[in-house]
């Protein structure tokens, strides 16, 4: 039995790292955007379009990293479009976000047709498990560099928001636009840049899906990772560090269903497959009630105004 427990633990550990990366990248991007007081619901579109562009670029050039770069570029452009439209008077950022989600997915499906069949070169993993003779440990410790990029970004973002002038400007724009304007800051420009930067991260998240795990392009590739990550930001209460924990938790609970079935606990797999969502709901209910949570919401967000 302890063997079985070890297997499930390893599967969840490995799954946490493999499955969490796209959630983490999108959540970090959205945190940056929302910190300036704007919501970009279009990141699911960035993710799907990024996945397609990355796969296509990798297939055409033979270089998966060029694919990642292309996905980041596409994400930037798409989200800059969102940022620019939201600058116009009386525009609702949530509605624009939904439009961009559909636009991104539509573009990806339209241009992605010829790339469903071919097999593109994929990103390599760093093998950190060679010290162990257990193949399961080795497998779990095959980690894609983008995961570490995500971790590093979380720390940098946290530090930047807390300690730098840019961080202050972003927070002020998000908490009180009028105060920021009084300081001579162009609120629209800050939001445009933050939205575009957030979009590039969502594009990279898409590249992770199509070039690493599960590692192929098709139209059902994303099962709503881009949307779930937006929810994770609220769950992580706009803190980049908490985004890491939220994404890992989500990844691990997503691996629970298949892992339990693999050791023979196969009853009730629908329930286990729903575990991530149930967990999110419970934590949201518990955490959203606290007084502290109310203080952490950027004051300019259209959902709290």
């Amino acid at each position, binding site marked *: 039995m302890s063997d079985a427990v070890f*297997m499930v633990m*390893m*599967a969840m550990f*490995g*799954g946490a790292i*493999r*499955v969490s990366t796209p959630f983490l990248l999108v959540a970090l991007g959205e945190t940056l955007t929302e910190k300036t007081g704007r919501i970009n619901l279009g990141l699911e579109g960035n993710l799907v379009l990024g996945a397609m562009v990355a796969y296509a670029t990798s297939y055409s050039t033979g270089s998966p990293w060029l694919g990642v770069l292309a996905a980041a570029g596409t994400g930037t452009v798409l989200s800059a479009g969102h940022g620019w439209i939201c600058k116009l008077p009386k525009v609702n950022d949530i509605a624009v976000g939904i439009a961009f989600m559909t636009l991104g997915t539509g573009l990806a*499906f339209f241009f992605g*047709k010829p790339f*469903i*069949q071919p*097999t593109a070169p994929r990103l390599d993993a760093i093998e950190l498990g060679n010290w162990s003779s257990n*193949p*399961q440990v080795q*497998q779990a410790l095959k980690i894609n560099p983008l995961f570490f990029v995500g971790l590093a970004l979380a720390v940098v973002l946290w530090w930047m928001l807390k300690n730098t002038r840019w961080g202050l400007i972003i927070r002020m724009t998000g908490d009180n636009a009028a105060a920021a304007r009084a300081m001579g800051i162009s609120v629209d420009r800050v939001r445009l840049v933050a939205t575009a930067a957030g979009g590039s991260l969502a594009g990279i998240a898409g590249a992770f*899906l199509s070039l690493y*795990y*599960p*590692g*192929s392009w*098709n*139209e*059902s*590739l994303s*099962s709503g*990772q881009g949307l779930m990550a937006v929810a994770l930001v609220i769950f992580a209460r706009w803190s980049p560090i908490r985004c890491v924990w939220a994404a890992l938790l989500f990844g691990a609970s*997503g*691996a629970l*269903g*298949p*892992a339990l*079935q*693999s*050791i*023979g606990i*196969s*009853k*009730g*797999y*629908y329930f286990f*497959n729903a575990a991530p969502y149930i967990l999110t709901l419970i934590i949201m209910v518990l955490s959203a009630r606290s007084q502290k949570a109310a203080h952490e919401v950027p004051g300019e967000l259209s959902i709290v105004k």
Partner: protein
Amino acid sequence: MMKTLISRRRLLKNGAAALAASTMPFGAAHAADKITIGAIYVGTRDDFGWNQSHAAAMDILRQVPGVSVVEEENVAETDAVAKSMESMINFDGANLILATSFGYYNPFVLDIATQYPGVQLRHCAPLWNPDTDPQNAGSYFSYLNQAHYVNGVAAGLSSISGKLGFVAAKPVQTVLSNCNSFLLGARSVNPNATVQVIFTGSWSMPVREAEATNALIDAGCDVISCHVDSPKVVIETAEARGVKTCGHNADQRDLAPNGFITGAESNWSTTYKIYADALMKGETVPNLIAGGYHNDMVMNTPFGAGATPDARAAATAAIKGLKGGKPIYVGPLKDNTGKIVIEGEVDNYAPELETMNYLLEGIIGSTT
């Protein structure tokens, strides 16, 4: 908005139908030298899976002189499919429409068949009821489990551990039957073989399919097969981990140059050629076509590098046996809770197999 669209369509339709009736030899009774066949897919036509198996058959049909083919991809199992069918009938002049996804049938195919009695509609699942459903509708389907049995034979002899893995979408009859036949194929050559099944709960969810594949390999399986809409992710994940694979629905040989053994495929072109032939000759298009190896409706993908010489020989012999009617389910067989589910020899097309809701002894997994 929806309502006005449809009624406008209907209006157009009535005009078009009147025009067509006066100019074109519509209807089943006349021989035709030019026919149009429409196919509607729920996903993309090159998905390495279900849709591709139909699209490949349509490509064969395209070569037949006098047949023109219209296709539409990514049509949801909603009102969208009704609109697709209407536009194929009214704008492309389709004589026959092939609705390839399960959820298209009721009410969409039934409604369109009632509204357009001059057009033939065939749906890919055993749903057509001769007593209550329109006579210009019908069903066609294949017993793909026969090809999964052959997969099992080849997998049983290509595996070292005797532990086979199966990534399954949902515990419905077709999936269970494929999984059980896979096990019986493997047990016919290795009585100790087991099949471990993981249900993903969804027809297409790439990340969970990859997780399931990894979990099966971690549990010691050295051959992986599957029944999901698009097996590409499963096959590629297993190949990347150096594990052998058996395919499902379409030809996946190229995805696994080292480990591919063989795959279970439906041969829809057999059915589609029968339909086209009947339409061209002006004969009645059969309402129901079903079958397996004996009438060329299923096939196995040519062997890949993962198939050992023994496996190739045994699988080829198994195909010969199935063509001659050798039964797959030979009792007494227990399910994996210990209950006897099959007493004696059961014909491969016996109706009692249509109600299968169990996993046989030797399969690790549960349907609930």
